[in-house]
């Protein structure tokens, strides 16, 4: 479980299928050195979490780290 700015990424569950990277409407996610990294600018649309087939990425709730 690796926290990013707005998402929590689970490196054990993740299989690097890159659905979250491609589904993101503002392209803040990317795969760098085999890890999912996040840039600034997340609009909290939850698309990555909804489309992830491996339950490997979660958008943090507003109260958590916002």
């Amino acid at each position, binding site marked *: 479980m690796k926290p990013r700015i707005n998402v929590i990424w689970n490196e*054990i*569950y*993740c*299989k*690097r*299928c*890159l*659905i979250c990277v*491609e*589904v993101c409407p503002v392209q803040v996610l990317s795969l760098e050195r085999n890890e999912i990294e996040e840039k600034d600018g997340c609009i909290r649309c*939850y698309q990555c*979490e*909804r*489309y*992830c*087939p*491996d*339950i*490997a990425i*979660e*958008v943090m*709730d507003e109260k958590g780290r916002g």
Partner: protein
Amino acid sequence: MDRSYKELLKLRRFPHTWCPGCGIGAVLKNVAMAIKELDWNYKNTVAVSGIGCSGRMSGYMNLDAVHTPHGRPLTAAETIKTVRPDLNVIVLSGDGDLGSIGGNHLLHTSRRNPNITVFCNDNEIYGLTGGQAGPTTPKGTKTLTSPRGEPYSPLRLGRILTQQPPYFYARTSVYHLNHFKTCIREALLWKGFSFVDIISDCIELNGRRLGFKTAYQMFKWFDQRFHIVEGERDHLQEDELGIAKALVEEVPKPAEKIEVKPEIPIESLKPFTLEELQQFDGSGGKPIYIAYKGKVYDLSGSLLFQGEKKMRCHIAGKDLTKDIDIAPHGEDLVFKFPLVGKIEG
């Protein structure tokens, strides 16, 4: 966002064994979400799965589950539903399992219409065995066993399952998520056999051969191939995502007419004594009267008393209250006949 659906998944077994980007993970997740929303749990739900990649879905769910032999999830599910009608039964399987090996079971289970819900992960190929052409492979698709393109037309599950009402057939895809969730929810709530045909991606064994690099490119391909249709439909065309459902039109039964005989007040009835009653035994053209519970009935119309003084064991012209009580028939046989008087004293 509600993440309580994770209670229904065996997270200690994760990551699951499916390939990166496989649509079965999305099916598993969304089915678990829908079941959790309906507040079904491990106490009232059974998952049945067949053979194939999708057969592992029941193993990752925190429910009582059966993993059946090739093509037999529907038989097992119908048996469970017959023996324990209080349980909710869901079938998690694939197109190769339900459409080809278990095709005959699909026909006859849908005909018998048990209250089970089938989730068919339709990736249009035999995924587990390496990407051979399956029953739902579209015509012209290059697969492991058809390198020049599949020469035969696919099995149209939608047409087979919507041939006669009642039916519930929904086609959806893992890309159209909101529609996908609606279909799952409606199928779970449908009373009867409901079938959800989920167009899913097999990127490793099908998509790469078709020229897609990632699972998301296959999703976009689904978006080009299919479009969502709204409203209630009888049938779905091959490029439509939607819900086709129909109920049997029940013919209302004609209401049975109940003849209400006007009740005659007992005071206005003609009084008889037992001696007078004995004369009416049917002899010499007289009517046949009997007494029952203080009232006198005219049994002349009875076929069994016709032309005879007595009918096997009942004697005409007598009080038959005790006889009728021990007789195999009930007292309603007497009430069919007209009331003519009462017994005095």
